[in-house]
């Protein structure tokens, strides 16, 4: 079963009384953007707490499946952060990450996920202020877009079949399935 992200405080645009707090997953590179975030912390630079950071060794480690899984589990947006071109700790892996980002963004767009929900940010280890500014801007972008309102519930029992998987003897379900309700008669 897919893990679900904390969604407390989330609401639909119709319930305007409670402000929408987007859940944003930010993937950071160990050598630059994670340290930029660290610097932002030690320098007491403020940015909205909506971005949850996950540290990777390199933006090149960002498997597209991580991004898809974040969206499937309820993220409203995903941010890929990494070293500036030419500055990669692993020479060129951030450029490979860029190519994957561009192609994945095309796929997500065709799946109905706006480009603003999947963004990339470059930040060196010295750019704590720039990273905080970028996160502030992205949170505002996503707040304006509203929740990623899946018309199907991807996180909940969707992942589980109607009947449990219990090995080769699924005899624990003796009752006959209820026949489907017939549709209403229409003239």
């Amino acid at each position: 079963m897919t893990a679900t992200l904390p969604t407390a405080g989330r609401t639909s645009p119709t319930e305007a009384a409670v402000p929408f707090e987007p859940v944003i997953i930010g993937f950071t590179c160990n050598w630059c953007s994670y340290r930029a975030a660290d610097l932002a912390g030690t320098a007491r630079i403020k940015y909205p707490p909506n971005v949850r950071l996950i540290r990777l060794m390199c933006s090149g480690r960002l498997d597209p499946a991580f991004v898809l899984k974040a969206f499937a589990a309820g993220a409203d947006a995903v941010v890929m952060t990494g070293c500036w071109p030419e500055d990669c700790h692993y020479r060129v892996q951030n450029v490979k990450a860029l190519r994957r980002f561009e192609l994945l963004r095309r796929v997500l767009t065709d799946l109905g996920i706006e480009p603003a929900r999947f963004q990339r940010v470059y930040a060196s280890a010295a750019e704590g202020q720039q990273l905080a500014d970028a996160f502030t801007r992205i949170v505002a972008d996503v707040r304006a877009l509203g929740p990623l309102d899946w018309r199907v519930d991807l996180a909940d029992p969707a992942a589980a079949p109607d009947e449990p998987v219990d090995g080769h003897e699924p005899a624990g379900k003796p009752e006959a399935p209820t026949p489907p309700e017939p549709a209403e008669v229409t003239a």
Partner: protein
Amino acid sequence: MTAPARHRLAIYWAASCGGCDISILNLHEAILDLAERFEIVFWPAAMDVKYADVEAMPDGWIDLTLFSGGIRTDENAHLARLLRRTSRILVAFGSCATEGCIPGLANLRPIEDVVDVVLGQPTVVDADGTWPLMRLSVPEGELRLPALEPTLRTLDQVVAVDYRVPGCPPESERIAEVLGRLGAALDGREALPPSGAVLGAGDSTVCDECGRARSPKRIDRFARITELGSIDPERCLLEQGLPCNGPATREGCGAKCPAAGAPCIGCYGPAEGVVDFGGRLLSAFASVVDADDPAEIDRILDGLPDPVGQFYRFSLAGSLLRGGRRAAGPSVAAGEPELVAAGASLGAER
């Protein structure tokens, strides 16, 4: 020693094209072995057994069911549950049942759009705007059409599945292997494969069984097969710029398409360990794009005009995002109550 008992076999098609059934028939002479070893108790494509007969079967009465097709209607869902109940071993058979296949691409759009394309925009003259009558009373009783579900689901999104056999369709030789293996297990001569196993295919990728020569790839353009003047018969198709889905696709077919000069389209589904077929494949493609500059990357990627169709042709319904944000949900049912099952949504029916 007595001859081993014949095991009861059911073969069902839900939302499928029937190609999986044809692939079974393509066993040719080997189908006689099948008939010797198995007693076929239900096979709508080939014989007349009513649903009521299946409903009367005791739990677990059928030893083995090969279930092809996705779950598109409430009839499909009913049969999935019924065959789960009446079968000891339920096999998701073929691409539709395992990952949605081509019918799963309908999940890109709301179900109203699908209905509109099929019925609202007829390709014949239809001045009266004919619409299906979902129920009809006749002297013999009431006739009823199955209602559409908002999204197409894979079999394991509806009921627990014991094994998966990939392929669109599964190759006949692989089917013979699977029936031989499961038949031996039912005889008690062999252990059952581990629950959830993929049968009738290997673990690695089509590239590993492809005979074409590979070298480090750098792709400066993607092209359709008609845009290339000629195709090198020895060299990797992806290196020649043809979008070939081999790098993410499970081996098992014998790499027939690349051998014939056509790129792999991915019908054998994700290789072992791949979480999301499209994610893995786009990663493989993007890594070999020969450009560092965003504008140049964009130009090369423009050679893939339909990324979702390329990367999720067979696997959309079973993918992490199931088809995307525009897929239908409970909100649609109000629009087409007579065609769309009310209240049916992904995983919501109980």
